[in-house]
C-alpha cells in the first residue's frame, strides 16, 4: 500500500464519519462543527490531488468564512435544538426502499462501466512547482475573465440581497 492510498482511506473515513455526525447530531452547533472537520478533511483531499490553491481556498472560504457565518446565525437565532418531527405513515419503509433502489442503481452503473473504473493519473512534475499556481492565475484572468467578472457581480448582488433581506422595516 502506498502512502497515497493510506492517506486516501483515512481521509475518506474521516470525511464520511464527520458527514454522518453532522446529519445525526441533534444540536445544530455540533452539526456545524462536524462540517468544519469535514471541510478540513476535504482540503487535505485537494492537497492529495495536487491542487494546493483550492485546498487553501477551502480552508479560508469554507471552514473559515462560511462556517463562522453559520455558527453566528445558529447562535443568534437560538436554533440549536428542535422538537422531533411527526412522520407520515410508512414513511420510514418507503424511504428505505427508495434508498436501496438508489444504491442498486449506483452499483449497477459502477459495474457496467467497469472499463473506465481503473483510470490512473500520471505522476506529473508540473504539480510540484509554482507553475501550477501561475497557470491558475492565467486561466482565471485571461481565459475565464468574463465568468470571473460575472462571479464578482454575483457576490455584489448577494451582498446587497443579504443586507436588504435582514434590514428591519421602519417602525416594524
Amino acid at each position, binding site marked *: 500500500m502506498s502512502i497515497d492510498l493510506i492517506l486516501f482511506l483515512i481521509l475518506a473515513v474521516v470525511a*464520511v464519519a464527520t458527514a454522518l455526525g453532522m446529519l445525526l447530531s441533534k444540536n445544530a452547533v455540533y452539526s456545524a462543527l462536524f462540517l468544519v472537520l469535514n471541510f478540513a478533511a476535504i482540503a487535505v483531499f485537494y492537497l492529495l490531488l495536487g491542487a494546493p490553491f483550492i485546498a487553501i481556498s477551502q480552508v479560508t472560504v469554507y471552514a473559515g468564512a462560511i462556517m463562522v457565518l453559520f455558527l453566528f446565525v445558529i447562535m443568534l437565532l437560538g436554533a440549536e435544538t428542535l422538537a422531533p418531527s411527526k412522520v407520515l405513515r410508512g414513511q420510514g419503509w418507503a424511504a428505505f426502499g427508495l434508498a436501496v433502489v438508489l444504491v442498486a442503481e449506483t452499483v449497477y452503473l459502477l459495474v457496467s462501466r467497469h472499463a473506465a473504473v481503473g483510470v490512473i493519473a500520471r505522476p506529473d512534475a508540473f504539480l510540484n512547482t509554482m507553475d501550477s499556481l501561475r497557470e491558475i492565475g492565467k486561466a482565471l484572468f485571461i481565459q475565464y475573465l468574463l465568468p470571473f467578472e460575472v462571479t464578482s457581480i454575483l457576490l455584489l448582488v448577494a451582498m446587497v440581497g443579504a443586507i436588504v433581506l435582514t434590514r428591519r422595516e421602519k417602525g416594524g
Partner: protein
Amino acid sequence: MIPLSWYLIFAAGLFSLGLFGVLARRNAVAILLGVELMLNAVNINLAAFWRYGNVTDMTGQVFAIIVFAVAAAEVAVGLALVISVYRSRNTVVADEIDMLKW
C-alpha cells in the same frame, strides 16, 4: 496511485449524505449545511477530473474556485432569508414556514 473511480465513489457518497441532510433535516440552517456538503462533493469531482485529465489545463480548478464564490453568495442570501423568516414567523423549522401554501 488511486484510481479515479475511488474519488468519484467517495464524492457520490458525500453528495448522498448531503442530499439526505437537505431532505430529512427540519432546521432551515441544517438544510443549508446539507447544501454545502453537496457543493463540496461536486468540487471533489471537479478537482479529481482535473487531476486525471490534462493537468496543464486549469479549467477544473477555475470551475472549483467559481463554485466557492457561488457557495459563499448562496450562504449569505440563504442565511439572510432564514433570519428574515425568523423575524416574521419566529421559527426556523422548515415545516412551519408555509406562507406560500394555502
